């Protein structure tokens, strides 16, 4: 029996409206109202339908699933079948709004196993923490 081949897209949501020049890292990931799992999953599905139509959604529907989403870091993992991941990625790029907030969906990593995307997410968060820590240290006078 042949296994179902999938791709896991590690995504990030960035909110350009809240961009603050002094703290770009934190401010881009801050939202006005809370965005949770359900809204993201619905928005993604809607985007695929809008961009690639019924045919497109039909081809990925069985595999399309938001496996993980953390509102704290605005990071998540989306599962999609391997044949169609490019179409799905393009559909996500076309998203400009989620829950009436302007948003940029950034795909940080495409991987074949969920473990690798988890590792990438952890590495990315570590890098951000370092940047934010350095940022804070310079603002309060330690450097």
């Amino acid at each position: 029996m042949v296994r179902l081949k999938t791709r896991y897209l590690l995504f990030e949501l960035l909110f350009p409206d809240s961009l603050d020049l002094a703290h770009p890292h934190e401010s881009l990931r801050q939202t006005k109202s809370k965005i949770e799992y359900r809204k993201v999953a619905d928005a993604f599905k809607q985007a695929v339908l809008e961009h690639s139509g019924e045919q497109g959604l039909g081809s990925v529907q069985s595999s399309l699933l938001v496996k993980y989403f953390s509102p704290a870091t605005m990071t998540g993992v989306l599962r999609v079948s391997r044949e169609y991941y490019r179409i799905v990625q393009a559909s996500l790029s076309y998203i400009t709004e989620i829950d009436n907030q302007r948003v940029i969906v950034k795909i940080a990593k495409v991987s074949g196993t969920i473990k690798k995307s988890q590792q990438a997410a952890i590495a990315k968060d570590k890098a951000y923490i370092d940047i934010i820590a350095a940022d804070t240290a310079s603002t309060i006078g330690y450097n």
Partner: protein
Amino acid sequence: MQLGKNNLYLSMRYDLNVPWPSQAAQPVKTAQKALVLLHELGYTAVALNFIVAGKLKGVSSPFTDDVMHELQRSVPGVRILKRLTLVLDEQTQNQSFASIVSQFDIVAVQPQTEKTLQSAATALDIDLISIDMTARTPFYLRHKLACAAVSRGVRFEICYGSSLDGEGRRYTVSNAIAIIRATRGRGIVLSSGAHQLANFRSPFDAINLLTVWGLKSSAARDAIGVTARQAAVNGLLRAKSAKQAVIATVEDAESGRPTKVLRVA
């Protein structure tokens, strides 16, 4: 793993079209926001695009030293380039071309008619041909003409920014496909051309969009990397070399540091 060449190219990500917000109340502040966002998304070099439609006479560059200094301060790690785009609808503008061009790093032309496209592709000393992505092109892009331009070292630009506003998407995709077909996938530069912050995308997503529109993935990757860099270097050579052949020092397009190139031919 290949070293050297490949690694260098993978680290370069260019966005050669960030429209200069001349209408905004605080153009410098608005441009700063765009630069910070692009840096955050992973770009290493950005060209600010000053668009001139109509007469060139009396137009001066908004990129004064003070402005550039201020912009550079907000994103120290990003190379900022100055770009001029001329919207050409007749041939008469060409006289005052040379004087203003020297103030910019990259010169692009947006042809509005078949005739200006012809001269941009075959005659004018430019780096980029930028086609208006938001409307139907008034001319048919012929393969022969496009290839003449590409083999002469002029690149074609595809802007993805307009594909993110509902109505523009159809034309953007159709124009992008037309450019890919006419050039057979060669000499294509991908840039944002986004008028608002929400329309910028990360390099990886932009490459994917271009792949979905039908370009080979290797050429799509080059469209924000190698090919875009070539366009930028072309511009540097125009501004700083003698007859594009001999040059004392050339600044590295990435870091802005002079590299010791004594002869480029």
